């Protein structure tokens, strides 16, 4: 009897391990392929990869992706703070006053916004921003990025805030804390790690978003500009264009750009996970 139980236990343990390996192997494969192909390009190019313009199709050198890096940073710089502030504020509102009409409206809008294809968002922003301004711009790109990432930021934040056990909320109220200081001094600090993770997830979404930028940012690759009103490039846009091109050298640069994106995710994630300690309940 006892051995039979042991056998079944072993059997299931190995099955779970096997299934996990199957599930995770495509991801591992992806990471390894991108890193292998991409880091080669970055290493060969060296510092030029970060400060040069992209190569012409028949150039001998890889060149760099400076316009895309600067464009991505610029648009992230504009859109991330707005997304985080709005998303967090909305999440606080809907977790604190779930039955309030405004909360219900926000929650519904956020859920429906998340289901709009990002390319449609791009078209909408094209119509209402790009056309009247008569130019693609980093600003239009940032607006599209904000619209696309806001529902996700909202969902991450509200899931995190809702995970705070009710007993801490009660404790805060019982010592006469106001609702706002309860949120700011108790609820958010208790789940600070979740909040930071939510910010990172939003950042990753913004950095990796492609379709929202197709008709908004403008893919300007012939120089570097930091004006929000000028057309700009972004790393995912460059990857998208270069991968589909017939030129081998552009496809190589696209590998490099992908690796750069992946590496920056990893660096950001591990640093923050390491720095922000989890609160032990």
């Amino acid at each position, binding site marked *: 009897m006892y051995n039979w139980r042991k056998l079944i236990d072993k059997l299931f343990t190995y099955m779970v391990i096997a299934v996990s390996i199957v599930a995770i192997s495509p991801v591992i494969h992806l990471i390894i392929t991108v890193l292998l192909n991409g880091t080669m390009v970055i290493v060969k190019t060296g510092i030029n990869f970060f400060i040069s313009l992209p190569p012409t199709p028949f150039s001998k050198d890889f060149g760099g992706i400076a316009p895309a890096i600067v464009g991505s940073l610029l648009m992230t710089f504009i859109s991330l703070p707005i997304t985080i502030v709005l998303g967090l504020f909305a999440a606080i509102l809907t977790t604190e006053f779930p039955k309030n009409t405004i909360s219900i409206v926000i929650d519904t809008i956020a859920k429906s916004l998340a289901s709009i294809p990002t390319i449609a968002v791009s078209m909408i922003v094209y119509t209402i921003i790009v056309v009247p301004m008569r130019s693609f711009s980093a600003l239009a790109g940032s607006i599209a990025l904000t619209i696309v990432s806001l529902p996700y930021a909202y969902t991450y934040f509200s899931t995190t805030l809702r995970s705070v*056990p009710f*007993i801490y909320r009660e*404790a805060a*109220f*019982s*010592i*006469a804390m*106001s609702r706002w200081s309860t949120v700011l001094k108790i609820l958010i600090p208790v789940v*600070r790690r979740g909040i930071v993770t939510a910010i990172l997830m939003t950042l990753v979404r913004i950095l990796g978003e492609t379709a929202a930028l197709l008709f908004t940012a403008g893919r300007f690759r012939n120089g570097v500009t930091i004006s929000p009103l000028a057309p700009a490039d972004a790393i995912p846009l460059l990857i998208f264009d270069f991968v589909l091109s017939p030129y081998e050298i552009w496809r190589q640069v696209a590998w490099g750009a992908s690796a750069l994106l992946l590496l920056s995710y990893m660096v950001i994630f591990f640093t923050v996970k390491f720095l922000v300690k989890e609160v032990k309940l």
Partner: protein
Amino acid sequence: MNLLAVEMKNVNVYIGNRHILKDVTLKIPSNTVFVIMGPSGSGKTTLLRVINRLIDLIEDARVEGYVKVLGFDIMKSDPYELRKYIGMVFQIPNPFPHLTIYENIAIAAKINGVAKDKKELDNIVRWALEKAMLWDEVRNRLHDYPHQLSGGQRQRLCLARALAMKPKLLLLDEPTANIDPVNARKLEEAIVSLKDEVTVIMVTHSPYQAARVADYVAVLYDGKVVEQGPAQQLFLRPSTEITQKLLRGEM
């Protein structure tokens, strides 16, 4: 001088369409230990939450009737102002996990403006910990976090946090339900020693605990107060069958 800490007249509480408290009328004298007994689900916890209006946190709760706490008509006063005078300890120890032992107590003192400077704050923290009979155990580890304490110590930390507000009224919701007998005993001692300074309203399951600490007892059954009076009288000559059963541990 107001001799009644809490006065309730015909209080009815509904949560959704459940009728939780039915026509509760209670008089709780100042500077006593007032124990509320009753079986699970009789509305004891709800009754406590009416007093400091923590019941406001429950979305679909509705309170009817007249409740006067420390001279405030609570339905008409600002709950945040009201709560400054009322400390509470809950069933499950809930010190703030991201704050140290010191900060847990200091935050309560600061919110209520009890302390003016760092030195005064230090004194209040020490005073509260001593009152909660925790000082000797944590005096050298004030900057540890609550998860490093035992369950019983955490609960006494919660008591210290409540006391740091210098409340006039202390609500205890089965504070010893989740801790061991030794810690429970310490908590009881702390409670009894407090009644010179505060009025204590305690909910408990245990008739033995009630007998050890209570000056007055009210028995709650199915949302109604079936009996209330001085503890001795109630324990020696319980007038209802419900109280008798409760005291025999049959309910």
